[in-house]
């Protein structure tokens, strides 16, 4: 087992992975510098991609890392979005406060619903989460006094960074705020994945019974990851409202959840950077390409679903040549009990 690692390490430093870091650096520089040379429209699209990418990454923590295929994750995105919009209207327009509250409410909602879903597995988990997403959408539709019903909440007040600061309305400035929050979320998610908790989640995904036999509380792990993912989804929902200053039941609904799940599949389960690339592909296909060919967004999206399933069985991340990826991890446990 150690031999594999020793062979890999020199190769790592012999220049194989340096280009990846260069590419990453290039992407970061491009993202930071984007507002200087682009139209407000482009900046807005990239900002939405970043936000949706964060949401997809939070779902990927559930689907790709923990092996919990949720079809209702849009509920927590939507709950975060509504929480941020209501907070902005009635309490405070301070962005970080909205993020904190939206994240906390998203996590709490995920925890409460998780108490029901953690008892199920496989296809039953898929359907229960689908039901939760649907209840959330109907709630958004019918609780008119709070959510504005089918019209949603429009004209959400613009972002403030501090209670004493002015309103931020310039597209480039909002974009930088979104970029900073997304980068922070990306970093936090990377930490969660690499942590002992993240490793335990992967163990649960690969062999739930063995993790239980090893003394892990599988239901505890499931509940914990649902709460964490719900929190990140809530934060992403809050960022979404900060940019669009509008939220409607459609943001909560099945379409949001299904599209995010499509992104996870396109990205390749468990790939953090892939989540953002997939979000870019899907947002561009749905919002840009769809309008170009005459409001046929759903058609193109459906074809994308079909193509992704057939052509990208391991997602975009699977397309990266295997020499650039990490060596396969040795099997869990050395006792050879398998």
């Amino acid at each position, binding site marked *: 087992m150690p031999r594999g690692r020793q062979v890999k390490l020199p190769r790592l430093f012999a220049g194989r992975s340096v280009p990846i870091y260069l590419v990453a650096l290039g992407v970061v520089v491009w993202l930071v510098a984007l507002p200087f040379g682009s139209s407000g429209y482009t900046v807005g699209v990239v900002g939405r991609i970043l936000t949706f990418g964060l949401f997809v990454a939070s779902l990927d923590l559930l689907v790709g890392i923990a092996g919990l295929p949720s079809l209702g994750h849009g509920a927590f995105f939507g709950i975060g979005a509504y929480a941020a919009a209501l907070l902005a209207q009635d309490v405070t327009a301070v962005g970080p406060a909205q993020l904190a509250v939206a994240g906390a409410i998203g996590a709490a909602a995920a925890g409460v619903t998780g108490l029901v879903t953690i008892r199920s597995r496989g296809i039953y988990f898929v359907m229960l989460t689908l039901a939760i997403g*649907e209840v959330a959408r109907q709630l958004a539709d019918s609780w008119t006094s709070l959510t504005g019903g089918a019209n949603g909440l429009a004209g959400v007040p613009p972002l403030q960074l501090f209670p004493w600061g002015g309103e931020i309305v310039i597209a480039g400035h909002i974009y930088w705020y979104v970029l900073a929050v997304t980068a922070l979320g990306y970093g936090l998610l990377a930490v969660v994945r690499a942590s002992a908790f993240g490793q335990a989640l992967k163990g649960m995904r690969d062999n739930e019974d063995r993790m239980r036999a090893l003394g892990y509380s599988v239901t505890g792990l499931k509940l914990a990851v649902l709460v964490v993912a719900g929190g990140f989804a809530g934060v992403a929902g809050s960022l979404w409202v900060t940019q669009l200053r509008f939220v409607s039941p459609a943001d909560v609904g099945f379409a949001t959840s*299904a599209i995010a799940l499509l992104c996870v599949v396109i990205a390749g389960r468990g790939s953090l950077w892939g989540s953002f690339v997939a979000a870019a592909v899907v947002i561009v296909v749905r919002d840009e390409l769809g309008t170009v060919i005459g409001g046929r967004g759903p058609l193109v999206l459906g074809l994308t679903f079909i193509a992704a399933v057939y052509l990208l069985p391991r997602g975009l991340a699977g397309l990266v040549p295997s020499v650039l990826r990490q060596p396969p991890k040795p099997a869990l446990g050395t006792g050879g009990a398998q």
Partner: protein
Amino acid sequence: MTEWLSGNLVSILNGVALGCLLFALAVGLSLVFGVLDVLNLAHGSLFVAGAYAAWRLADDGSLAGFGLAVVLAAAIGGAGGLLLTVATRPLAGRSHLDQALLTLGIALVVTELVQSWFGRDPHGVLPPLAGSVEIGGGYPIYRLALIAVGVALAFAVDRAVERTRAGALVRATVCDADMVAAMGVNTLLVRSGAFIVGGALASVAGVLGAPLLGASPHLDAQVLLLALVVVVIGGLGSVRGALLGALLIGQVQSLGVALAPRQAPFLLFGAMAIVLVLRPAGLMGTRHA
């Protein structure tokens, strides 16, 4: 009690009629999952195909046109089932999620095609049996006929699955497909057969349901959701479970909404959550998928 019963008789009958429709839709979904291990999210599209067949051939309420629509829908649904067997075949051994996404993609494409061919507007269909009987101040004959057809259908499917050789093969495949294949049975035939019959039933349900629900492009999502709930409540792969779940959801959607209109959105999924918490594999389910 009798007073309450007579006061709500119309709602209860409506619930039974809806339950019969849901059974025809859900039993295919359930068998396809049990036999092929495929979660077919395009099942609602087959229902919509049937609904549009009824609208094109029998929107004026002619009985002959309606019969023609049933035959045509069975053919369309069977062909759709065969196509879906072929489409999902390469995904065997991959996760349910991939199948769900593929069939969801197919459903999106079909919805768009239906919309571009027939327009966005919903279309009504007149029932082929006009008139009403004296129950609760006039109850449409068509719905009573629907209940009769649904009961006959449930009986026929149950007999076919429980008492015939083909049904025994289907049940064996639900239990252990590998073992059935090892016994020398061509499981590909069983698989395509289940998908074809399930698809035909879904499309026929679309025709039968057209006088109640009409035909509209986005009907597929509504009925699919109901069918999924029915299947989950009943237990995947079980015919009697599908019947029980369908009748239960029919009442929840009809009587429940009549008695507690404000809580209506939650009744459906509340019922499902309660059943799953108490019996995680559904009312009649034996295995934990």
